[in-house]
């Protein structure tokens, strides 16, 4: 089925779950979800055999600068958000399920029971963004070295390690 | 037995030690050069094996922990010694074998397998997993090619009615070449020789990409040099044996050089032709094909002898 019909079927499928649907361009559809609806949405897509899970990408939204400065930046750790994108592809059509998770309660249900091969993407997400995935079969490290300190999530904007200017080895 | 000067000379210089080591190195060079040329590569220079051995002897000898020191040091020595003594019963360089008594064929084959057993023991001696697996593979492969190789060598012995290599050599010299009358035996002997020397496609025990280099993984310097020399000597002896039995005996040095070189070209060609067989495939191939063919050849010869007598 060509991409237009694919996107329409996706819209119909995700009608009950999606809070909001944005049509980015003729080939991409974004669906905003809340964490607890995620599992059903993925299950619905999988049962309808809509394409395949192409990637799980994490995007860090640290607290906007002004109120971070106002609150002295200490609790900047608190207010930021991590947005997780589940990208499904069917031919040329690309469907992205977007889930926003605050730093304080950064946890999501696993999708490995529906799509077993997602375990690698989830492990990478856990390591890089510190998003806790409940129920994922394997939890240990995927990319970072064994001696990497706990709690330091490299891809979060707040961790400024190894910036291009100073390759400071001592922080590692 | 009075160790006359001649026998010491035979042991140390001419058909025995130095000449054989040099000859082994030359054959290793020819083998590597041929395989490289088949693979469209230039291949090593003529003194390469000599340089390798001298360099290895000059390297530091590391004895890893968790290893019986004595066994680790003496196994290579025993291996090379076994290979060198086996050379005494074989018509080396066209001369009459320096020692020969009835039944020395069995002793020679035993001595050659002693080298492989030493290799297996060396692998099992260390705690390193790769050499452990290499050792099991060496020994599994030993049991699989030993029987067919023996059968293939016994058929000419029966035709020559003796177990003495020198007598068989004379017999084959003045009769029709056995490669024509017993082609299957020749095939099994040649392929058995490749199995004994662990040349590809039977080089599962030291498959570089799978288990580093099998039993020799832990060896460096002197031990490795001695094992490699043992392998070269075994190559020469093997080729002479098969040439003596199947290519109409060896009477003079020229015949010796030509026949063994011819066999070496065939062996090098086979080496670069095939992919490496998995260990279970090699064992399967040997027991199903090799042993049966060897046995059939053996029975055929016995039947022939009974009828002919």
């Amino acid at each position, binding site marked *: 089925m060509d991409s237009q019909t694919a996107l329409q079927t996706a819209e119909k499928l995700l009608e009950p779950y999606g809070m909001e649907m944005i049509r980015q361009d003729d080939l991409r559809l974004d669906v905003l979800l809340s964490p607890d609806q995620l599992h059903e949405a993925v299950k619905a897509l999988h049962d309808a055999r809509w394409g395949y899970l*192409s990637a799980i990408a994490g995007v860090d939204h640290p607290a906007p600068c002004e109120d971070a400065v106002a609150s002295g930046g200490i609790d900047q750790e608190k207010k930021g958000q991590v947005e997780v994108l589940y*990208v499904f592809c069917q031919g040329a059509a690309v469907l992205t399920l977007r889930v926003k998770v605050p730093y304080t309660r950064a946890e999501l249900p696993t999708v490995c029971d529906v*799509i*077993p091969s997602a375990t690698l993407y989830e492990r990478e997400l856990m390591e890089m963004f510190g998003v806790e995935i409940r129920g994922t079969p394997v939890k240990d490290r995927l990319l970072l070295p064994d001696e990497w300190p706990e709690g330091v999530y490299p891809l979060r904007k707040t961790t400024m390690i190894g910036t*291009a200017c100073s390759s400071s080895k001592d922080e590692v | 037995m009075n160790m006359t000067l001649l026998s010491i000379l035979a042991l140390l210089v001419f058909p025995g030690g130095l000449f054989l080591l040099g000859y082994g190195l030359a054959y290793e060079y020819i083998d590597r050069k041929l395989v490289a040329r088949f693979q*469209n590569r230039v291949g090593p220079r003529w003194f390469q094996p000599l340089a390798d051995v001298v360099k290895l002897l000059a390297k530091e000898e590391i004895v890893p922990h968790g290893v019986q020191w004595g066994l680790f040091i003496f196994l290579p020595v025993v291996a090379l010694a076994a290979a060198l003594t086996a050379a005494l019963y074989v018509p080396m360089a066209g001369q009459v074998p320096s020692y020969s008594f009835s039944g020395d064929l069995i002793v020679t084959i035993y001595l050659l397998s002693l080298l492989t057993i030493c290799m297996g023991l060396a692998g099992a001696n260390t705690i390193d997993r790769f050499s452990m697996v290499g050792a099991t593979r060496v020994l599994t492969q030993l049991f699989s090619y030993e029987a067919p190789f023996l059968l293939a060598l016994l058929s000419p012995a029966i035709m020559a009615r003796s177990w003495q290599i020198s007598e068989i050599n004379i017999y084959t010299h003045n009769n029709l070449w056995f490669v024509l009358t017993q082609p299957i035996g020749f095939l099994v002997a040649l392929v058995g020789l490749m199995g004994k020397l662990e040349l590809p*496609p039977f080089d599962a025990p030291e498959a570089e990409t799978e288990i580093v280099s099998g039993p020799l993984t832990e060896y460096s310097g002197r031990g490795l040099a001695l094992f490699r020399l043992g392998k070269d000597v075994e190559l020469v002896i093997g080729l002479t044996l098969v040439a003596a039995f199947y290519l109409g005996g060896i009477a003079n040095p020229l015949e010796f050089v030509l026949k063994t070189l011819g066999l070496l070209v065939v062996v090098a060609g086979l080496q670069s032709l*095939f992919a490496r067989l998995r*260990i279970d495939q090699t064992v399967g191939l040997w027991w199903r094909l090799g042993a049966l063919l060897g046995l059939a050849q053996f029975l055929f010869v016995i039947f022939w002898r009974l009828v002919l007598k």
Partner: protein
Amino acid sequence: MEAQKSGEKFVVPIGPQHPALKEPGHFEFTVDGEIVTGASVRLGYVHRGIEKGTEDRTWTQNIYLLERICGICSHVHATAYVLGVEKLAGVSAPPRAQAIRTVTAELERIHSHLLWLGVAAHEGGFDTLFMYSWRDRETVMDLLELISGNRVHYSANVLGGVKFDLDVDKMDAIRRGLDFLEERTHHYMKVVTTDETFLARTRGVGLMTREQAETLGAVGPTARASGVQRDIRIDAPYAAYPDFPVQLITDSGGDLLARFVVRLKELFECYRVIRAILDQIPEGELTTRVPRRIPAGETISRVEAPRGELFYYIKSNGGEKPERIKVRTPSLCNWGTVVSVAVGHKLADMPMLLAGIDPCFSCNDRMVRVNRDQSSQLWSWEDLRQYGIKYYR
């Protein structure tokens, strides 16, 4: 083998360390009796932190960083990144630049497939095929050097176009090179499908059915060898593929032999597409202007790398540096399929299954940890194979 508790991981990288994916892998299987209940992979030996690095570099500097994720498919990484950024900037490269990008991409696919053919043969101990295929690969390396100046990392791409042009004698040189390669590929097709010892190592090994491949998101030749109709050049054509379409090559075998055959057939397809592009290469400029500051927004760029679908997610906050770049390499999917397909198989099938998928066998860590209830044994790759043989005897 007695169960040794050698926690010491003796990691010897053998042969070509060849991380077609971002990192070489290290496998762990949890076993209940004979049946594998779980499998996981530990990457990280080559993890350099590139995604964090992209956030400290400007848009043009990132081209050279992202090209060096993988030395074998460096051009395709740069193409995916550049196409994404051009989409964000609302600019599109002139047709001649797109055509040159596609020619370089297909030349890289030829060099990658020939490389894989050699390395896979080397893994199977067939060194002669390794030497011959790498000797012929030098022809395509010369072509790449002729047009771009470098054998690996040709950095053909610039934001908004291409760095070099293809004049007439370069095109003739490419055509001559392709004729030689095509004749050699016929020879390899014959060798791979008739040589007895090679077939013994590849036929019926690592079988993956079509449903498994589809649901688990297998990509590239590994998926197409199981009959999955998935090729980004056809599903979502990019660069010059809309004007020079590519045929989909699939095989229903699903085993290692099918993967060899699919990759060799793809080589023929590469020769055809390159010749078609060279014959009617559009005239015109090589580059267009792209602003230093890319307008805010995000885009997804998907490209067909030699090993499968390469996925780029690029987010810009309007500055000179990207806010986030997510790269998902094709082999991560193939590792993923292995991790899930392994469950339910008998332990004795593991070496064949892993070799069958063959994403990047030679960079696999030669170390498989088998946790049998409480005693965790550390087996090398070969112990596993040995175990398999003893099990089936």
